[in-house]
């Protein structure tokens, strides 16, 4: 039992890493996009847990809400909007897909070899950075969300505003593209 507690984070990592890969494989292999979207949701939520294991509590919630909530609903709406009844006679894969698959596997082997063998050494384990960084020295900061907020609104204010402008442009673009002529 104590061994289970001691190895808890590692076991959680392996469990949710496996779920992430299973979900991703489902997206690529399942023929019906509806099942693919559900499979993608599994992948998104598992990745949120993996964020949680790396001291990114705020980002884990953003991942669950924005990906698992917003983007997922967008995909499901569009899947239901386009009619899929002709799916049975439609081809799912390109003719040259075996060649593309071979190239992807080669790339996987190349980078995988590199990632396994390059040594980054142990992490600088300073988890307090994730709850204090960015805040002024005399402020009490009590959590990761607060630290992210301080950092976002003090050090990265200009990128933040540019991101909001980008979202406005994307929204207008989506409305214009989706409009009936």
């Amino acid at each position, binding site marked *: 039992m104590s061994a289970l507690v001691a190895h808890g*984070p*590692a076991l959680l*990592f392996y469990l949710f*890493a496996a779920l*992430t*890969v299973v979900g*991703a*494989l489902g997206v*690529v292999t399942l023929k019906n*996009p509806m099942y*693919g*979207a559900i499979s993608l949701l599994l992948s998104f939520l598992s*990745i949120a847990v*993996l*964020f949680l294991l*790396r*001291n*990114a509590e*705020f*980002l884990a919630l*953003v*991942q669950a809400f924005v*990906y698992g909530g917003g*983007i997922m609903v*967008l995909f499901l709406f*569009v*899947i239901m909007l386009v009619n899929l009844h002709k799916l049975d006679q*439609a*081809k*799912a*894969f*390109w003719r040259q*897909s075996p060649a593309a*698959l071979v190239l*992807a596997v080669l790339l*996987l082997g190349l*980078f*995988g070899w590199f*990632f396994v063998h*390059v*040594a*980054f050494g142990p992490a*600088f384990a300073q*988890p307090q*950075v994730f709850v204090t*960084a960015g805040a002024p020295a005399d402020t009490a900061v009590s959590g990761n969300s607060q630290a*992210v907020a301080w*950092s*976002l609104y003090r050090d990265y204010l200009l990128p933040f505003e540019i991101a909001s402008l*980008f*979202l406005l442009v*994307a*929204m207008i*673009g*989506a*409305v*214009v*593209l*989706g409009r*009936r002529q």
Partner: protein
Amino acid sequence: MLEVTTNHYLVLSFVLFAIGLSGILVRRNMITVLMSIELVLNSVNLNLIAFSYQHSNLTGQIFAIFTITVAAGEAAVGLGILIALFRLRESTDLGGAAGLKG
């Protein structure tokens, strides 16, 4: 042995990247291709978080937030294009977009 290092995250992230890339390359359905792009963006986020932890630096998390923002915009515009193409061709097959080559 049972310790999760940055390399674990990198390998997982690259497996995810390769799956997403092969999805983009081999699938004909435009919705599935867009979902594969989301997988690729997620693998990038995993890398950012892993290195943010490795260096005990919050900036990686901030950058990941911006990546998610861009992914949301990309999904909205991509699905808008999909709807426009579907109105034109009555199909979500990417072969229908071959008319773009003029």
